[in-house]
């Protein structure tokens, strides 16, 4: 009688690594016409322990396999591929970029005069959303009991009016003037006393500080419409900008948005030839497929641009599901960051990773 042989010890099962179908489940999301399958991430290192396989990555393995490839880098946008990282970390970076990397934004507005049609609070809100051209790393947070000084506050002035009889005036963000010496408004309780106090206490002009002397702390875009003034209307105000994070208010978010998508993988399961090939090429709205001439007048469909796939699933509708398989690679992320101006996009990502490191350090120090 032959002794029992485990299915896993059969000669066609690869030793020391997962069988192909399990490896597929672990590393790919397969997008079927109705719904995707294998969407769950299998993180637990002992998930396949019964087969004698340890899927734990280990730091050394991670460092060996992790790769970053920059695809596009412009003044305010970066697209890069992050390969060999788990979705939990990619998502942590994305979440931090949106909500926890600090920027500078207008927080307090002192309205002296506003006779325009736009209400004070609406105008203040608009001012808050203006991206400022200031490096947040050079500033400190202004805590509740702190006195605004040159290290934690930037002051801007807006003083615009429209003369009677002249056409309407559009107020744009370039009319916000930076006040490097701090507030020019006097606190009302001190107005008549000899020691008049204003709303900030700058010990020196921000222009005299070496880090700000090269470039004025202006607004990033000078064509943002703030208000429109009719004849005889005027706005006079002072705006104080401070450092904050997007968790508190979205105006402090350093990104317009940031997102990632998993790398699409388009596989032809069978050879697609002739008119079928032409039909398939025509079906795809983003031209993932292409025709290859086989020489003897025969044509074959090939996958030429899988990265362009938007997962519309047009190619697998109806009869094609056995011809084409749409997959996503679970540990390959196409990451895009759109900066709003406070940081260059490539520095934003580095700042986000630093924030996660700080979070770890905080908890480690609390544990010990």
């Amino acid at each position: 009688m032959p002794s029992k042989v485990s299915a896993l010890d059969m000669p066609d099962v690869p030793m020391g690594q997962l069988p192909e179908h399990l490896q597929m489940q672990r590393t790919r999301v397969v997008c079927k016409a109705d719904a995707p399958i294998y969407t769950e991430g299998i993180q637990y290192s002992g998930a396949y322990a019964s087969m004698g396989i340890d899927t734990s990555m280990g730091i050394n393995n991670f460092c060996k396999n992790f790769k970053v490839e920059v695809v596009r880098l412009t003044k305010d946008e970066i697209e890069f591929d992050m390969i060999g990282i788990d979705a939990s970390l990619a998502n942590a970076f994305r979440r931090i970029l949106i909500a926890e990397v600090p920027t500078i934004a207008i927080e307090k507005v002192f309205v002296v005069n506003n006779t325009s049609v736009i209400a004070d609070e609406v105008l203040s809100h608009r001012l808050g959303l203006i991206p400022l051209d200031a490096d947040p790393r050079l500033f400190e947070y202004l805590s509740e009991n702190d006195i605004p000084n040159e290290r934690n506050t930037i002051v801007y002035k807006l003083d615009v009016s429209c003369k009677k009889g002249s056409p309407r005036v559009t107020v744009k963000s370039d009319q916000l003037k930076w006040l490097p010496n701090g507030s020019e408004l006097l606190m009302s309780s001190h107005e008549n006393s000899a020691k008049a106090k204003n709303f900030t206490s700058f010990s020196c002009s921000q222009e005299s500080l070496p880090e700000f002397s090269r470039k004025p702390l202006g607004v990033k875009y000078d064509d943002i419409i703030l208000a429109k003034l009719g004849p005889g209307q005027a706005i006079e105000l002072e705006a104080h900008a401070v450092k904050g994070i997007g968790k508190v208010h979205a105006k402090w978010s350093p990104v317009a948005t940031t997102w990632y998508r998993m790398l699409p993988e388009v596989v032809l399961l069978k050879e697609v030839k002739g008119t079928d090939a032409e039909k398939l090429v025509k079906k795809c709205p983003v031209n993932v497929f292409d025709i290859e001439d086989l020489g003897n007048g025969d044509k074959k469909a090939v996958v030429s641009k899988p990265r362009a796939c938007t997962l519309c699933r047009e190619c697998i509708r109806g009869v094609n599901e056995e011809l084409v398989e749409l997959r996503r690679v679970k540990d390959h992320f196409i990451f895009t960051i759109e900066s709003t101006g406070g940081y260059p996009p490539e520095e934003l990502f580095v700042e986000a990773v630093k924030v996660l490191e700080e979070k770890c350090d905080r908890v480690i120090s609390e544990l010990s």
Partner: protein
Amino acid sequence: MEHGSVSDLSSSTFSLMDEDHTLANSVRFTLNQDPRVSFCGYSIPHPSDNKVNIRVQTTGDPASDVLKDGLQSLTVMCQHVRSTFNKSVDDFKATKPHESMKIDTP
């Protein structure tokens, strides 16, 4: 804050204030990669509390030590991500001089 038994240190729940999915999910990942961990999960008990509970059960080692190691390996991973990213950006700027010149023009 750690909640666990005095006699059995191998399983504990850690309550972290002012943290959310960002840290908890990442730490859960690194802990699940650790062979000493038999179970790890996290929950946010109420969405309006800034608090996350991380449950760690190990095969014998003290849960707090294992959590600390998990956080440390997360830090190491972050540092590696940072250096790899910086290197790739520098390489990109070096090989694509035209694009990098565009970066400087306002």
